[in-house]
């Protein structure tokens, strides 16, 4: 479990103060994969550097399984860091070392006996599916393979937390999915807590149990994937389930609703039940249905006939657990 409380980072730029993190609090339970999304400039990089204490936060704390990492001496910090395995966007492998030697690096640091290192490296190579590549140098590997080595290296110290900073942003879509599958497999096998920082919504859909949205140095939305998506008006929901850009414009004067529903209801005929109940025709303007994690999610933009009682329909939809935003009254 990783607990971050009220993390603040203020940089000095000449006489100006730049607030990069304005009090970030976060808790990820053991064995969960949590995504932190945000646009560039939202504070993602600063957050990563503060979580690993590459930069000291101005205030606030980071704790792994209750042990605080902040406010410790340099010596203690080195030990503390070994509880967090970190995966970088560009893997950051050492070019002068073979795959096996790269994975062995964190073990060498603490004087692990040779035989033990060899055994651990063999096990890790197998775990990430690179058993045959122990003697290869990073330059001989593909981007995806390099990232696998980076993951194996991060796991060498048996950390409690796997911190992934844009782990797939430099990879093609197919390799991205392979790496995400690997991360999920490792979570299942090692019951490790995973934190993925990314700007790709695809990563969240594919791999995360819960998600936080970082904006201007603070977390503006967070929660389990289905909760977040089912929250009316949440910007995560709309970015996770985007409607096709070329959706037809509405004609006529009927009210327009954005409805999002998930899980069980996604398989239920929500629309026809509304149509039957209120005896109205419903026009579907746009829609997206996607599988995320365990659940299926649907987002539809519908137009009611001008004669329909919009408030009644909205109430009914809400009563059956559908998130509704009326276009025009919400932004």
């Amino acid at each position, binding site marked *: 479990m990783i607990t971050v409380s009220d993390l603040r980072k203020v940089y000095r730029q000449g006489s100006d103060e730049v607030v990069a993190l304005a009090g970030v609090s976060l808790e990820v339970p053991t064995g969960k994969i949590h995504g932190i999304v945000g646009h560039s400039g939202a504070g993602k990089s600063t957050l990563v550097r503060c979580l*690993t204490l*590459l930069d000291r936060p101005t205030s606030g704390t980071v704790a792994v399984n209750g042990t605080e990492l902040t406010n410790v001496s340099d010596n203690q910090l*080195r*030990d503390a*860091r*070994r509880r*967090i395995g*970190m995966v*970088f966007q*560009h893997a*950051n*492998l*050492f*070019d*002068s*070392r073979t795959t096996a030697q790269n994975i062995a*690096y*964190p073990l*060498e*640091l*603490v004087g692990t006996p040779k035989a033990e290192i060899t055994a651990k490296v063999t096990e890790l190579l197998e775990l990430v599916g690179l058993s045959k590549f122990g003697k290869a*140098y*990073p*330059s001989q590997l593909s981007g995806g393979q390099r990232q696998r080595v980076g993951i194996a*290296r991060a796991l060498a*110290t048996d950390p409690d937390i796997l911190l992934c900073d844009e782990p797939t942003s430099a990879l093609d879509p197919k390799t991205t999915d392979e790496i995400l599958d690997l991360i999920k497999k490792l979570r299942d096998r090692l019951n490790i807590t995973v934190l993925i920082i990314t700007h790709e919504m695809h990563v969240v859909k594919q791999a995360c149990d819960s998600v936080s949205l970082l904006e201007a140095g603070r977390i503006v939305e967070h929660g389990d994937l289905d909760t977040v998506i089912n929250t009316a008006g949440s910007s995560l929901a709309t970015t996770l389930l985007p409607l096709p850009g070329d959706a037809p414009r509405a004609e006529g004067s009927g009210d327009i609703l954005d409805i999002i529903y998930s899980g069980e209801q996604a398989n239920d005929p929500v629309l026809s039940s509304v149509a039957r109940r209120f005896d109205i025709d419903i026009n579907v303007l746009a829609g997206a249905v996607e599988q995320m994690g365990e659940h299926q999610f649907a987002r539809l933009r519908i137009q009611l006939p001008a004669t329909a009682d919009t408030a009644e329909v909205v109430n009914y939809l809400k009563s059956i657990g559908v998130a509704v935003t009326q276009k025009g009254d919400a932004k």
Partner: protein
Amino acid sequence: MMDFFSELASNPGITKAMWPAFIETMQMTLVSGLVTVLIGIPLGVLLLTSNKNGLAPLRWLNWLLSAVIVNITRSIPFAILMIALIPFSALVVGTALGPMGASVSLTIGTIPFYARLVETALKEVSSGKIDAAKVMGSTRMQIVRKVYLPEAMPGIIDATTTTIVTLIGYTAMAGVLGGGGLGYLAYNYGYVRYELEIMVVTIVILVALVQLVQFFGDRISTRINHR
């Protein structure tokens, strides 16, 4: 043409003086080259790590090393530096003359140059690799020994090759100023006595020496470069 070669074979400048002069040049190059590497690498590491964004920022040390020692030494022409260092050479190796005496000033003349090249090679190691090493819990010493030096080794080998080539050129100058060696031979026979053939042979040997150093330097650098 045959006359030219038979004359060469009978010229005492070549038959008698050439070999000892060659040995003296090699002595100067190897001794000062070795000491330059031994002192220059740690100095290059210090230049990098004491820097503002380095592993162990130390402002006064960086200023002292970079602005005062390295830059001032590098801006003094080598011939002047050599003359200025005569008393110092005498103090260190007992004489300012001969290959050993010249080696002292050669070394002092090349260390700053080499240290800068080493620093530049170390700077090429991406900050991401250093971050990775830090996050895995490396001490600063481990980062230098296990990351900076091995990752920059191809660049450091290139810097060493360049420095040895420069050093060979410097030995010729040092030779004229009392160090002996091929430079002295070329000056004495070629310039003072105006025996063109001695000059030509000396130049050929120096060119061959430089080519050889460059060739092996490049080979070693390529072999250990896995990028």
